[in-house]
């Protein structure tokens, strides 16, 4: 067999060295993240931007907690909002108690209450949901989610009836203060959830994701693993819920509803579950989509759904996987070779997007909003939706867009193959 003593010592030291630099890299990344969080609210200081940043911060915690289930352990849940929402309700009640001076707790620590609230329900419901795995687990989470949402009217004391539970973040924080409270909790939660991925449970969760059967045969009760991950994930979801109480000062049945659960699923998946920063990217994209786009057009849900389906079909690893694919190119200094193809694909996509937006907005205007007349504005241009001109333009854009996409996709494939071959050749 191969003589190994020399080689192993050498590569062992090599590995030690790499670990050291990975360590310092980690500090740099976390430091940079903290810096970005500090600076962004100062740069984008309008009310709207601050609200957006706050929502993104909360969503990041929520999505990272969701990825503990999806990306780390392979558990697809359709009812994760149950834990963030119920945690929020608990936090809201406690906040009201704080406001009435019955409970001595600084408001900044409220998310912890939300966390423990979420964790409590994580234990309760998690016991039921983690009895099965895979698709059955997904269906059970759906059922539990519906059950909690439907029961919101049955416990008016806890859920506050139809109006929900309003609160007041009494201790007068200036609006900017709230944003930094959220940012701090976001940073702390991110670090905690990252640290978790480097623990025995975190690694075994990965093993359960990859091969639950084999995990059993190396001594692990996979059901117990999934249960524990669920509980921890519910804790962090509850923290997000507690923060939303501070941010919005109200909790309603919507917080536990199917829309919230679907939202975090979309955000996490679009960002990508395989890399830790995937859900972070996904949260940014999702909040921008949901909040900003919903102000621009009533058809935003259609666009979001379409975007999600396209990601599932063509980029199932999410945006983060796309970014990470560029890393070997950057290392081999060949990224610039792909840029023309990327530009071509982007251009074609823009054309198809314009065709889509025009068509959808036209149909929306004519079918749903025709009471107000058929005049409309789009991208600064006014036109009459009922006339033939916009339809002709849309049709033309579709045809051109389809052709352009075909060409651009083929060109992209060729360029990619060529660059990959060059890299493989230079590595051999």
């Amino acid at each position, binding site marked *: *067999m*191969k003589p*190994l003593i020399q*080689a*192993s010592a050498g*590569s*062992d030291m090599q*590995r030690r060295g790499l*670990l050291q630099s990975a360590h310092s890299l980690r500090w740099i990344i976390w430091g940079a993240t903290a810096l970005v969080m500090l600076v962004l609210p100062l740069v984008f200081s309008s009310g709207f931007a601050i609200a957006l940043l706050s929502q993104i911060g909360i969503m990041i915690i929520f999505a990272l907690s969701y990825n503990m289930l999806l990306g780390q352990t392979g558990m697809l849940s359709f009812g994760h909002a149950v834990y963030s929402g119920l945690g929020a309700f608990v936090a809201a009640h406690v906040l009201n108690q704080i406001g009435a001076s019955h409970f001595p707790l600084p408001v900044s620590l409220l998310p912890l209450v939300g966390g423990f609230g979420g964790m409590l329900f994580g234990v309760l419901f998690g016991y039921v949901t983690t009895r099965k795995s895979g698709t059955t687990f997904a269906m059970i989470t759906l059922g539990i989610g519906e059950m909690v949402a439907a029961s919101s009217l049955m416990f008016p004391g806890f859920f506050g009836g139809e109006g929900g539970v309003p609160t007041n973040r009494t201790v007068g924080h200036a609006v900017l203060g709230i944003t930094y409270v959220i940012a701090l909790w976001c940073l702390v939660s991110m670090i905690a959830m990252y*640290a*978790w991925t*480097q*623990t*025995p*449970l*975190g*690694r*075994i969760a*990965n*093993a359960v*994701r*990859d*091969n639950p*059967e*084999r*995990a*059993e*045969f*190396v*001594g*692990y*009760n*996979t059901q*117990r*693993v999934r249960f*524990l991950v669920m509980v*921890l994930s519910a804790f962090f979801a509850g923290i997000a819920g507690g923060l939303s109480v501070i941010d919005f000062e109200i909790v309603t049945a919507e917080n536990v509803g199917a829309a919230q659960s679907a939202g975090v699923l979309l955000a996490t998946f679009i960002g990508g579950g395989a890399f830790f920063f995937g859900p972070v990217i996904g949260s940014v994209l999702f909040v921008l989509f949901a909040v900003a786009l919903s102000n621009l057009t009533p058809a935003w849900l259609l666009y979001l759904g379409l975007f999600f389906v396209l990601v599932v079909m063509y980029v199932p690893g999410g945006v983060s996987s796309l970014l990470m694919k560029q890393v070997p190119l950057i290392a081999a200094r060949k990224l610039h070779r792909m840029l023309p193809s990327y530009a071509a694909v982007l251009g074609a996509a823009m054309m198809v997007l314009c065709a889509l937006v025009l068509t959808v907005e036209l149909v929306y205007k004519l079918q749903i909003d025709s009471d107000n007349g058929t005049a409309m504005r789009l991208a600064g241009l006014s036109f009459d939706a009922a006339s033939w001109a916009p339809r002709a333009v849309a049709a033309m854009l579709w045809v051109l867009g389809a052709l352009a996409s075909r060409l651009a996709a083929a060109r992209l494939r060729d360029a990619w193959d060529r660059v990959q071959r060059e890299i493989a050749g230079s590595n051999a």
Partner: protein
Amino acid sequence: MTSALELREVRKQFGRTEIIRGVNLDIAKGERHALIGPNGAGKSTTFNLISGRIAPSSGTVKLNGVDIGGLPPYKINRMGLSRSFQVTNIFHRLSVFENLRCSVLWALGYRYSFWHRLEQLRDARERAEAVLELIGLQGRHDTLAGLLTYAEQRALEIGITIAGGAEVILLDEPTAGMSRSESDHAVELIRRVTVGKTLVMVEHDMSVVFGLADRISVLVYGEVIATDTPQAIRNNRSVKEAYLGSTLDEPAGTH
């Protein structure tokens, strides 16, 4: 002296078909035992019954004198039995090193801890590195397990099986699909890693069997028709009939 593994009148039915029809096995501590038989005899099913993948319909399976019939696989593994799979069953999105580290975590007592930092667990790291060396995959330390060659995956398969330090090792066709030289390497590896342990092996390759086994059991149609030393098995008439006089007389494998 208690045998390491004891099967008494073990039967297994799937619907109306009885696959295992009364298997009796007695394997001593430290013994290297081979389980051979024609295709469809029920060798893998027997392994599944022992390791907890399925439960026996009747009969007893005892590990070191303790009844393990019907227990889930993780409980049996914690009691000191570990098995490999005929179809490679690894953690394909983890690196080779992580695969091995996952295999030692429970045995080292870390259980479901989320307060230890993996990097700082020296014993887990050293143990995994040791097994990595033993199976000869140091050069693949950080390679994703799914990207290994077939033979490398088979080596990793064995590595995962023995990493936890189980006393009783079950290997299910460890050399399946290997070339002659790869098989020889594998036999060397198996001999190295099972020193002082009890080994039960399902194999088709007779040279591997005769090279490693202290005793051989022959399984035909769900029953053990003979258990004896390799030489005796070679000369056993009913065994020869079961194999229709084919492989037993040839020294080399037929793959």
